[in-house]
């Protein structure tokens, strides 16, 4: 943990040597991810109710997913570069150092510019919270930070799972984008727009439904298209922990499986 902050601080200071470039990159990150929000606004130009959800409700989904994703991405997103480390042979050096390999890969190239997305998503979330028509009971208020933290953990675990897979198939980096960036994209919308099988897959196989969809159903008082028992809506922390465990085990298996490149 200490090693992570040390590495992250070092990379931040390195990035801060070019303040203009860092500012521009942070702003452009903010705008790039904001384009998704514009897409939602354009959709609501044509309709006032989208799959039974109002604009503030979709913005709530967008904001919670975005905040969780941005934090996970800033903390651990660079693990998808693992394939590069393996190909270039730098992973050998990583294994030699007295710091866990996962910490080193995650802190590698840490850049505060990734927080540009966090600012943008947090802004959307604040607007959504201010305009939502919800009976704000204590449990609903408490559920918001719980879902965001669970979301961070779930996204981070998906990233580690994807990275572990790269021990087997180094070329998989782009395919993994489907689970991480695709996961962020799909959880911006009500999952009920998908077919039922797709929702099932996102609940039981890659449990991205627990990032924000399940708890949001409770907060927004919306029906569950799968008709699962009400307690499932509170299962996000449990799912996050389980997924973490699976990710940790597969990472360890991956490191054991690793054989250096070379002929």
């Amino acid at each position, binding site marked *: 943990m200490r090693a992570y902050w040390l590495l992250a601080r070092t990379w931040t200071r390195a990035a801060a040597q070019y303040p203009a470039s860092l500012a521009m990159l942070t702003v452009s990150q903010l705008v790039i991810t904001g384009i998704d929000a514009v897409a939602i606004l354009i959709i609501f130009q044509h309709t006032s109710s989208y799959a039974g959800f109002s604009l503030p409700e979709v913005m709530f989904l967008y904001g919670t997913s975005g905040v969780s994703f941005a934090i996970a991405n800033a903390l651990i997103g660079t693990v998808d570069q693992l394939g590069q480390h393996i190909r270039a042979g730098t992973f050998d050096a990583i294994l030699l150092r007295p710091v866990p390999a996962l910490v080193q890969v995650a802190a590698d190239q840490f850049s505060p510019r990734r927080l540009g997305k966090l600012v943008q998503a947090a802004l959307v979330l604040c607007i959504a919270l201010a305009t939502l028509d919800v009976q704000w009971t204590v449990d609903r208020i408490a559920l918001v930070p719980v879902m965001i933290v669970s979301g961070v953990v779930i996204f981070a675990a998906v990233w580690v799972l994807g990275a572990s897979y790269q021990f087997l198939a180094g070329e998989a980096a782009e*395919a993994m984008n489907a689970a991480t960036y695709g996961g962020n994209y799909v959880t911006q*919308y009500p999952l009920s727009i998908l077919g039922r099988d797709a929702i099932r897959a996102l609940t039981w196989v890659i449990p991205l439904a627990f990032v924000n969809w399940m708890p949001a159903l409770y907060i927004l008082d919306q029906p569950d298209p799968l008709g699962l028992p009400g307690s499932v809506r509170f299962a996000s922390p449990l799912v996050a922990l389980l997924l973490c465990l699976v990710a940790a085990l597969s990472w360890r298996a991956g490191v054991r499986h690793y054989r250096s490149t070379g002929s």
Partner: protein
Amino acid sequence: MRLYLTVAWASVRRHATYRAAAFGGAFANIVFGFIRAYVLIALWQTKPEIGGYDVAAAVTFCFLTQGLIGPIAVFNGGLPEVAQRVRSGDIALDLYRPADFQGWLLVTDLGRAGPDFVYRSIPPLLAGALVFDLRLPDSPAVWLVLPVTAVLAVVVSFALRYLVMLAATLLHDERGVSSAATILALFFSGIMIPLTLFPVWLRPIAELSPWAATIQVPADIFLGRYHGIALLAALASQAIWALALLGIGRMLTARVRRRVVVQGG
């Protein structure tokens, strides 16, 4: 001319090797294609027709344009390989060749796009067709002009990225300039959401932009939204952007050339 054909062919062969990476990319394109399709289907459930698209056209648009991301490459920003060569100094070699600098890069890029059309455009359309009723072109004229619009789209995209590369070289800032270019491309090409859904005041501006000529116009041609003269006009708009942007790039090349300082010793 033979020189350029040889260069293009070498580029085709080079890019045809990275099949695993290309299919990995195609897989991500397919997943995003399905999500985008479901996003639009939910909107079309409120109305049967929006901006001249029915739901079949909207779904086809998603898979088709996901398949164009790889070959058109307009979202890559600039020309990262050239920027790398500027940094390393290898650019001196490129400027020294007995071939036109811009032309050399253009045929290299066309050669790159060739295998990408095979590896990355066809899989998303096939995957989409397994689940949805896609709208394939029904007129022979459209099938005939598909290669033309595809090549023009790559040329417009190249000309844009070439300009970005020049700007990055002049400003000594590659990442900032190229992400600004990516933002414009994401917004105005139609990949974020079809330009047909844009508000009335913004739609004509977006549709006339060079980014529309890379994604939205070829997609609309594929969907059979242009016939006869309108079809020719759509192709002409792509050709005009291609020529204009390549022309501007040529003019600026001469200026940037004088500014390039080659380190050596």
